[in-house]
C-alpha cells in the first residue's frame, strides 16, 4: 500500500516536470504586467490603466499580436502602498513579465522600481509624477508617459526667459502644496538659468487686499511674476495690479489655466500666461480610444486612461521595432522610436521622460486661452 503511493507520487512528479519543461521550452505569449491601485481609496486612479492596457492589447492581438505571439496581461494590485508594491513587483517578476505598465502612485512606483531594475524589467508609468524617479538617473528601466511635477515650472521658466527675454522675476505662491511646489521648482530653474529672483514669498489666501505685496513686487523692479497656486488669488492679484496700472507680466500654472479665471478677472486677465497640459482633445487617436472605451465599458474613461493607453502602445511598438523582447533592445527602441499615441507623437529621452508629452504655455487673448506654439 505504502509502496504504491510512493510510485504514484513519483509518477505524478515526473508528469508534472514534463509538463513544466514543455511550457519552458518556448512561451507562447508575451506577458506584460499591469500594476497599480485596483482596490482601495485610489482604485479610481489605477483601474482606468488596466482598461487602457486591455483595449490596446485586444487591438494588437486581433492583428496577430507582437512578434507573432499573443500578448497576455498580468494584472496585479498594489493598493497604492509602497509596502504592498514590493510584493506586487516580486509576484510579477515571478510571473516572468517582460515589462510592466505602472505603477500608479509615485511612492509605490519607487518601492517597486528597484526590484524591476534588478530583474531587468521595463517599467512605464502612466501617472507617477515625482521628479526624481527619472531625474535622479537611478532607474534606467523607468519610463513615464506623464510630465513630472516640475515640468510646468520648467516650461514656464524657459518660456519667460527664452521667448519673452525676462531676467528679473518675482516668484509668489499660495503656501499650498501645489502652489509652493511649483514656486520652489520655478525658483530652482530660475537660479540655475542665472535669472534674478527678487521676491520669493507666499501670500495669504483669502486676504481682503493684496496691495502691500503688489507694491513690494513693483518696488523690486521684477519684470514678470511667476505665481504658483489657483485662480481665485491669481485673479485678485492680477486685477489689483492692473487697477494700479502695473504692467508686470503674470505667468502661472495649471491651477490658473481655468476659464473661471478669465470670467472673474475679465479685462485684467488679458495677456496672462499660464501653462497647461498639451491639448489632446482634437487628437483623432484620443477620440478613438475614448470611443472604444465607451463601447466596451459603457462609460467615459477615468484618470490617466490616455497616458496608460499611450504607454502600452509605446511599449508594444518598441518590442515590434526591436524585433525581440530583449531588455536592452527594447529600451533602446523606446528611446529612439517615435510612436503615434492619443497624447501625440511621443518618444522617451535618456532619463525616461516622454518627449512630446507635457505642458504648453497658453495666453489669454480676447477672453480665451490660446496655446502658444
Amino acid at each position, binding site marked *: 500500500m505504502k509502496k504504491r503511493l510512493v510510485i504514484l507520487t513519483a509518477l505524478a512528479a515526473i508528469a508534472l516536470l514534463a509538463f513544466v519543461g514543455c511550457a519552458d521550452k518556448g512561451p507562447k505569449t508575451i506577458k506584460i504586467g499591469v500594476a497599480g491601485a485596483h482596490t482601495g481609496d485610489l482604485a479610481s486612479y489605477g483601474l482606468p490603466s488596466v482598461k487602457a492596457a486591455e483595449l490596446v492589447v485586444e487591438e494588437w492581438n486581433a492583428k496577430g499580436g507582437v512578434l507573432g505571439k499573443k500578448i497576455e496581461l498580468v494584472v496585479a494590485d498594489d493598493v497604492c502602498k509602497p509596502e504592498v508594491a514590493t510584493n506586487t513587483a516580486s509576484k510579477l517578476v515571478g510571473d516572468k513579465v517582460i515589462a510592466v505598465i505602472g505603477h500608479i502612485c509615485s511612492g509605490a512606483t519607487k518601492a517597486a522600481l528597484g526590484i524591476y531594475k534588478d530583474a531587468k524589467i521595463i517599467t512605464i508609468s502612466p501617472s507617477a509624477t515625482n521628479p526624481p524617479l527619472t531625474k535622479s538617473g537611478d532607474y534606467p528601466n523607468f519610463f513615464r508617459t506623464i510630465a513630472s511635477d516640475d515640468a510646468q515650472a520648467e516650461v514656464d521658466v524657459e518660456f519667460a526667459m527664452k521667448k519673452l527675454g525676462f531676467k528679473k522675476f518675482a516668484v509668489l505662491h499660495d503656501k499650498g502644496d501645489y502652489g509652493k511646489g511649483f514656486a520652489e521648482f520655478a525658483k530652482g530653474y530660475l537660479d540655475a538659468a542665472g535669472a534674478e529672483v527678487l521676491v520669493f514669498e507666499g501670500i495669504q489666501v483669502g486676504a481682503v487686499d493684496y496691495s502691500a505685496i503688489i507694491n513690494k513686487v513693483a518696488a523690486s523692479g521684477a519684470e514678470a511674476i511667476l505665481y504658483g497656486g489657483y485662480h481665485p488669488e491669481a485673479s485678485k492679484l492680477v*486685477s489689483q495690479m492692473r487697477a494700479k496700472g502695473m504692467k508686470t507680466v503674470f505667468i502661472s500654472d495649471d491651477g490658473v489655466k481655468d476659464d473661471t479665471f478669465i470670467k472673474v478677472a475679465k479685462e485684467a486677465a488679458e495677456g496672462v500666461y499660464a501653462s497647461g497640459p498639451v491639448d489632446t482633445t482634437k487628437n483623432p487617436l484620443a477620440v478613438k480610444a475614448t470611443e472604444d472605451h465607451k463601447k466596451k465599458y459603457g462609460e467615459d474613461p477615468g484618470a490617466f486612461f490616455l497616458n496608460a493607453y499611450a504607454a502600452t502602445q509605446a511599449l508594444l511598438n518598441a518590442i515590434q521595432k526591436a524585433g525581440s523582447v530583449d531588455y536592452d533592445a527594447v529600451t533602446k527602441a523606446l528611446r529612439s522610436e517615435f510612436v503615434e499615441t492619443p497624447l501625440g507623437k511621443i518618444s522617451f529621452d535618456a532619463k525616461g521622460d516622454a518627449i512630446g508629452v507635457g505642458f504648453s504655455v497658453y495666453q489669454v487673448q480676447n477672453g480665451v486661452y490660446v496655446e502658444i506654439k
Partner: protein
Amino acid sequence: MDLNYLLQLFISGMTRGSIYALIALGYTMVYGIVQLINFAHGEIYMIGAFTALIVATVLNMTGMPGIAVFAIAMVVAVVYSAAYGFTMEKIAYKPLRNAPRLSALISAIGMSYFLQNYVLLAQTSDFVSFPRLIPKFRFLEGLGGMLSSTQVIIFLVTAVVMVLLTLLIKFTKIGKAMRATAQDKTMALLVGININQVIAVTFVIGSAMAAVGGVLISSHVGQINFYIGFIAGIKAFVAAVLGGIGSIPGAVLGSFVLGLTESFGTGYISSDYEDVFAFIILVLILIFRPSGLLGKSQKEKI
C-alpha cells in the same frame, strides 16, 4: 527703502484698516451692549456684497453711469443687510437673552454656518466676478498709480460712516439710550429705556456698516464667494479685541493698527508671515493691556 515705498505700504495698510474698522464696529457695538460675540457678523458683510452684486448686475444692463449704480447698489445692500441683522437678532439671540452667554455664542456660530450655506445653495459655490463700480478718477493719474480710485472711495466712505456713527451715539436720543444700555441694562430698563428696541437698532447699525464694508472691498478685490465673510470677520474680530472690545474708538484704532502691521510686515519682512504679524501684535497687546488698547478694565462686581 525709499519714502515712496513707505507711503504706498501706509496706503495699503490704511485700506485694510478701513475695511476691518467697518466690520469691527459691528462686533464691538454688539458686544458693548449685549456682551455677545456675534460670529455671524462676517456673513452679513458677505450678504451685503452679494446683494450689491445682484443689484449692480441688473442696473448695469440699463446703462446707468457707474457711480450711480454704485450708490444704488450700496443703499440696497445696506437696507437688505440691516434687515438680515434685525431678523437674525430676533430669531437667534433674543430668545436667548437671559440664557447663559455660552448658549448665545453657540447660536451665533450656528447662524454663521446657516448663512454661509444658505448663500452657497441659493447662489453658487464658485467665485463670481464683482463689477468695478467705481470709475477711474482723472485727478489720481498724476500720482502714478499710488492711490487707486477705489482706495479713495474706501477712505472717504469709511470716514463719513465713522463721523455719522459718532454723531449718532453722542448727540441723539437713541445714542444716549445705547450708551445707557451698555453701562447697565437693568438701570436703563428702570429709567424707561426700551432695551429690545435699543438692541435691535444696534444690530441694524452694525449690519449696515458691515454691508458698506462688503460692497467697498468687493469692488476693490473684484470677486466674491460665500466664504469671504469668514476670514474678513475673523480679522475684524481680532481688530476689535485689539482695540478693546466694546469700545468704539478702540475698534477703529485696533483696525488701523492691524491693517498697518500686516502691510508693513509684508512690505519689509515677508508676506509669508502676514497672519503671524497680526497675531503677534494681538498677543503682545493683550499681555500688556489685557482689555485692549482703549478697553476699560472690567471690575468684578462683588
